């Protein structure tokens, strides 16, 4: 197992180096002078320009610049945001919990609906439920989620007036974050009305972000289940006289879920990409919106570090999923 783990890490190393090179190159590939680009629209005086050049190390040879960049990043120094004037890592740490909270609820929504739906569709293969579900899943899979979000706002916020249009919590609630997760913090403070407000802000974005994963999970569960239902051990379990629900719920499901878990793990990249759109629509203060805003503010220090941090997170999660997969499934370890 340890050997498997080390092997995986070695395989990931080139990607890790590649990610840092991409982030390093980003600022240097921008049209025009990198310092002027980073300074934003206001520009800088010639003296300040030289100072910045010195400070960012642009007068050094390129490989030294890269070494400095990686060294800084490894020690958690990602520079200072031009628009917020705060260290990028601090902004990231404040905003990231919002994205995790949103993604977690989106994933829960997708799993709670997707897995049972996929199982039922597989068990009742060819039924109207199966066909309807697969049709719906394809629609979900083809959904432009930025439009889906707007439609839900029109209906639930505009027409029914049930949910707020944007943000994470009602403006009347203000408290110092403990965990950064609104749903948890409000409970820790014991404020029920604030908790309700946080939930009502969360519902629509979570549904929007969870739509594509829901479709993917439902499809994947169905096909994994169909495959497993045809296996010998399922037939044996049936022949032993076990109840249908036990065969499906225990014997089949446990094996069918292995590929599903992998699929869910691999949705992380898609979730973060989706978060860019979802957060923009709902003015959700997470890292997706932060990236888009920073691009428009030309705060390239943030874009550069955001790119690096997000790619590292996706890579780390994929690595963890790979390893967990090997833990559940010994066959993978052997190969």
């Amino acid at each position, binding site marked *: 197992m340890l050997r498997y783990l080390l092997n995986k890490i070695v395989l990931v190393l*080139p*990607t890790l180096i*590649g*990610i840092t090179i*991409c982030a390093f190159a*980003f600022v240097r*590939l*921008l*049209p025009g002078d990198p310092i002027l680009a980073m300074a934003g629209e206001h520009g800088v005086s010639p003296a300040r320009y030289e100072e910045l050049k010195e400070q960012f190390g642009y007068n050094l040879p390129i490989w030294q610049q890269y070494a400095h960049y990686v060294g800084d990043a490894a020690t958690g120094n990602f520079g200072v945001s031009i628009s917020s004037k705060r260290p990028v890592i601090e902004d990231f740490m404040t905003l990231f919990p919002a994205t995790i909270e949103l993604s977690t609820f989106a994933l829960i929504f997708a799993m709670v609906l997707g897995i049972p739906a996929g199982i039922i569709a597989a068990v009742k293969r060819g039924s109207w439920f199966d066909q309807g579900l*697969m*049709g719906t899943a*394809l*629609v979900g*899979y*083809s*959904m*432009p989620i*930025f*439009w*889906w979000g*707007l*439609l839900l*706002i*029109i209906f639930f*916020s*505009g027409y029914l007036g049930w949910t707020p*249009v944007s943000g994470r919590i009602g403006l009347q609630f203000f408290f110092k974050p403990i965990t950064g997760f609104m749903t948890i913090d409000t409970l820790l403070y014991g404020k029920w009305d604030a908790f309700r407000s946080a939930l009502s802000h969360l519902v629509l974005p979570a549904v929007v972000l969870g739509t594509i994963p829901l479709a993917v999970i439902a*499809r994947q569960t*169905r*096909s994994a289940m*169909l495959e497993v239902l045809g296996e010998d051990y399922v037939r044996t379990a049936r022949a032993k006289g076990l109840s249908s629900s036990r065969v499906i719920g225990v014997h089949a499901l446990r094996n069918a879920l292995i590929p599903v878990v992998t699929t869910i793990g691999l949705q992380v*990249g*898609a979730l*973060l*990409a*989706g978060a*860019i*759109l979802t957060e*923009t629509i709902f003015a959700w203060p997470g890292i997706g919106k932060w*990236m*888009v805003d920073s*691009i*428009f503010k030309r705060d*390239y220090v943030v*874009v550069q570090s955001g*790119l690096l941090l*997000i*790619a590292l997170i*996706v*890579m780390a999660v994929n690595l963890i999923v790979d390893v967990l997969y090997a833990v559940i499934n010994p066959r993978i370890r052997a190969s």
Partner: protein
Amino acid sequence: MSQSTEIAPMAAGNPDRLTGFRTFWHYFSVNRGAVIGLFVFILMVLAALFAPLLAPYAPDIQDKTAFLRPPAWQAGGSVEFLLGTDAVGRDMLSRLLYGARFSLLIGAVVVTLALVGGITLGLLAGYFRGWVDVAIMRVMDLILAFPSLLLALVLVTILGPGLFNAMLAIALVLQPHFARLVRAAVMAEKSREYVVAAKVAGAGHIRLMLATILPNCLAPLIVQGTLSFSNAILEAAALGFLGLGAQPPTPEWGTMLASAREFILRAWWVVTFPGLAILITVLAINLVGDGLRDALDPKLRRS
């Protein structure tokens, strides 16, 4: 699955084209959704081609007397503007019809770029192996390590916003899927007898790669191409929506949605129709893709 042995050689460049197509159509048309998807897609292509004839107005003409006019069937609407008008008095229907041109253009250009890039890199990697393979595939892994939309966003930031740059960025992001597919297929085919035979007969590297091996990798490529076509439309619309793709007043559907956002609670039609157009197009293409997968490549069947 019993058909697999029967279809594979058919799809793989059977000299008897007609029978090949008939077999293909036989399996494709079993999938009712795929046929509907194909029908809708053909309608889209026709709408795009004949947009100037079909559209009642030019896409950028503004009627200063008709801002945010609702669709014909709603109170306040008129048959003059069937699907209503947008905030500066442009006819929604006309803009949507012209928008079909952009979406199909985006799909076609992106898939072509991604195909050419992916096939070249995949062939090189799978055929030569060794350090060529390692170098190419590491870069592909790297591209796939980023969430696709994020990478596209950053690339567009470097290249500058605009439809063409958005297409380039999306093609680059989608291209590794093709490279991986081609590489895997080439590695599987390379040691087959017919390739060895061609090599013995004196075929050079280029001929072996392009004329001998490539035609036998086409089936999965066609399927992937279809799915990438719909992906490209979605991503381009997303970039347009974020303000980094096609720029206003281009009647690209995503861009139209972006400028409609502020009227979302006042004029549902300016938001609903462009998105519906994206959804229908993408759905139709995905249906066709599923049908193609069933018909061309039984190994890839999901269900």
